[in-house]
């Protein structure tokens, strides 16, 4: 236990001090890593904890982003207020989907397909939703970004980095406590054998819904961040299934259901992606598409040989695992 706390502390210090010795490029990559780590962690709550495979998580990112973005764009309402609207909307959506799915007994692959259908449905719907700009996209007004304007969430990249770091740390802590508490144990039971859990008298419906709601809420915040970081939103891009896939890559490679898995996965994948791009450029192979082939190959290898993700075996090696 002591080792784990120590390792965590070292990591935390490193991350806090990162901007001191990292250039702007590394900082932007680090922010991206944290973004995927956070969003992956949010997804992990639903999948790793409660065992519900959501392949349409871009839905929550998009709705969250558009909710906060639209309020800012049309009414000048700042992101802190918009955040709550975003969370509320996403929780309602998640709960609705969860309710429909669980009441009708949809699970496994069918649940996954249901989530995809909802995300696609929303994508095309937003493409026709002119109040938020339709397919032309929504461009948020960008102010000069030298000063830290927390109220409107505008500032230099440093601010975004720390904001994302705070979010990721917060999610990590939240998940840690959740796992140790009652919901955590119920989720484990449901994940391992839902029927047995039900037989034991656990209200599986309620706990599954809780996981979905928490996951949706966390992901909504991710969407709000996205809106104010990139300042332009297009339904075609933000609700796209490729974004949903991006979100789950981190946790799956890192280790579904583990606390540290999503973070490790996001870090490795982003570094891998950038690393391959650099390596390919250094070798002078400027063929478009070659980088993605390598990327796909690595994914394939990891999936084949490390089915539970990279973190569990790594943790064992480092002596950081539970037992």
């Amino acid at each position, binding site marked *: 236990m002591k080792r784990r706390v120590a390792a965590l502390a070292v990591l935390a210090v490193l991350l806090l001090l990162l901007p001191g*010795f*990292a*250039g*702007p*490029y*590394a*900082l*932007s*990559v680090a922010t*991206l890593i944290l973004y995927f780590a956070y969003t992956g962690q949010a997804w992990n709550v639903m999948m790793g904890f409660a065992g519900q495979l959501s392949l349409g998580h871009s839905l929550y990112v998009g709705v969250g982003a558009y909710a906060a973005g639209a309020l800012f764009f049309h009414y000048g309402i700042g992101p802190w207020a918009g955040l709550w609207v975003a969370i509320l909307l996403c929780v309602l959506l998640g709960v609705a989907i969860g309710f429909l799915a669980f009441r009708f007994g949809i699970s496994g692959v069918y649940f996954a397909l249901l989530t995809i259908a909802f995300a696609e449905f929303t994508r*095309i719907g937003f*493409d*026709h939703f002119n109040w938020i700009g*339709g*397919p*032309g*996209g929504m*461009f948020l*007004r*960008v102010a*000069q*970004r030298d000063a830290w304007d927390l109220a409107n969430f505008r500032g*230099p*990249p440093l601010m975004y980095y720390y904001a994302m770091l705070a979010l990721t740390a917060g999610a990590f802590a939240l998940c840690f406590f959740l796992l140790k508490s009652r919901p955590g144990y119920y989720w484990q039971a449901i994940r391992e054998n839902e029927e047995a859990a039900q037989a034991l008298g656990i209200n599986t419906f309620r706990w599954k819904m809780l996981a979905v709601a928490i996951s949706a809420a966390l992901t909504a915040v991710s969407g709000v961040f996205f809106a104010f970081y*990139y*300042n*332009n939103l*297009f339904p*075609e*891009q933000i609700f796209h299934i490729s974004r949903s896939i991006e979100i789950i890559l981190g946790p799956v490679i890192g280790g579904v259901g583990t606390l540290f898995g999503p973070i490790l996965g996001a870090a*490795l994948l982003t*570094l*891998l992606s*950038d*690393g391959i*791009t*650099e390596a390919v450029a250094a070798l002078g192979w*400027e063929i*478009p*598409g070659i*980088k*993605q082939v390598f990327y796909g190959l690595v994914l394939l290898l990891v999936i084949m040989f490390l089915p539970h993700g*990279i973190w569990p075996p*790594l943790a064992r*090696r480092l002596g950081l695992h539970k037992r």
Partner: protein
Amino acid sequence: MKRRQFNKALAAAGAAAAVSPFGILHAQAQKLRVGVLLPRSGYLGFIGQSCQKGADLAPEVIKGMLGVDIELMNADTESSVDTARTRAERLIQEGAHVLVGAFDSGQSAAIAQVAEQRGVPYIVNVAAAPQITEQGYKFVFRNFQTAVDIVRNGLALIGELFQATNSVPRSAVFMHVNDTFGQAMAKGIGAFMPRLTQLPFKIVDTITYDPAAKDLTVELSKAKSANADFLLLVCRLNDAILLRREMVKQRWNPMGIVSPGSPGMYEEQYFKTLGKLSEYSISNVPWYNPNAPLTRTVEKAFLKRNPKEKLVFHGLNVGFTFEAILVAADAFKRAKSTEPKTLADAIRQTNITSKMTLGGPIKFNEKGQVEGIGSACVQNLDLIPKVVLPANAAEAKPVFPAPYYKKA
């Protein structure tokens, strides 16, 4: 073990890259380093690679024109906003003095933010969303029409077209893709049409369609049933091909297919796939001036590097990408420095009259936008797109209505 080592190695590489010195040389610099950000893979791969051809020939041509040395730093945005942003940061860190790109409005907007924040000038080659130059940026410039301009020019050219061919079509059916571009065009048409009273036609029906649709049978039959004189179309390449084929299968032969401003019908694939069917389609788009001396120079360089291709199929992409780099080089020559702020100021003073694309001189207004870029009415004749209007840049006379026209 392997994972840890791999991870460590990557982390080390990352750290090394991060702390490496910026390498921005101030004043007395010999070379201008231009970061070129284009989507060379992903769904925009085809267009990105086309633009890249314009970038690749730039250093040689510009050396001949201005005596200035340019070093290109190419990056692939992979048609993704995330990658566009990090690649832009990377290029700046590696010492790019100016950025150029990125074709897509979303990616361009992301790069613009990075450029503005880092104080590095960024010249947009092709991207029509008006908002990019409406943010009050000091380091972002665009030498391309906004969607609003494209529509206005496109509609005006339609009027000219009918005048030049003495035709008076009374009705049009308007079909457009439901994406960024199509939507902007639809809005523009809605705004400008009522004001352009000299246009003889009315739009009798509007049909929107999904750009990813692989089957447009229903859409086209709707269009056909509107019984309009001609088809006003805002499209992309694949759907343009689908629609043209569908028109044959459904035996609809209107006076013509006219685009007030969209890609698709002048692209090489359209001709290759449709053969003779591609004839007479008309697109009103920003284009290069076939008679300009610079065009000939660029064409020579293009053919040297791409002997199997024709410039005319890449004209728009190559022309504007080349000009973006030209603007950078021209500013560098005047500023005699690669210091970003100096470069930006120099770019603001740009006044290039001898250029390749149609329209007035390259001069940026206070928003960083060039006004007065011209459009051409381009018609597919003899299996290549030819400029038919304006008359002073024309290579052929416009044909309207098309010979295949059959009154319904």
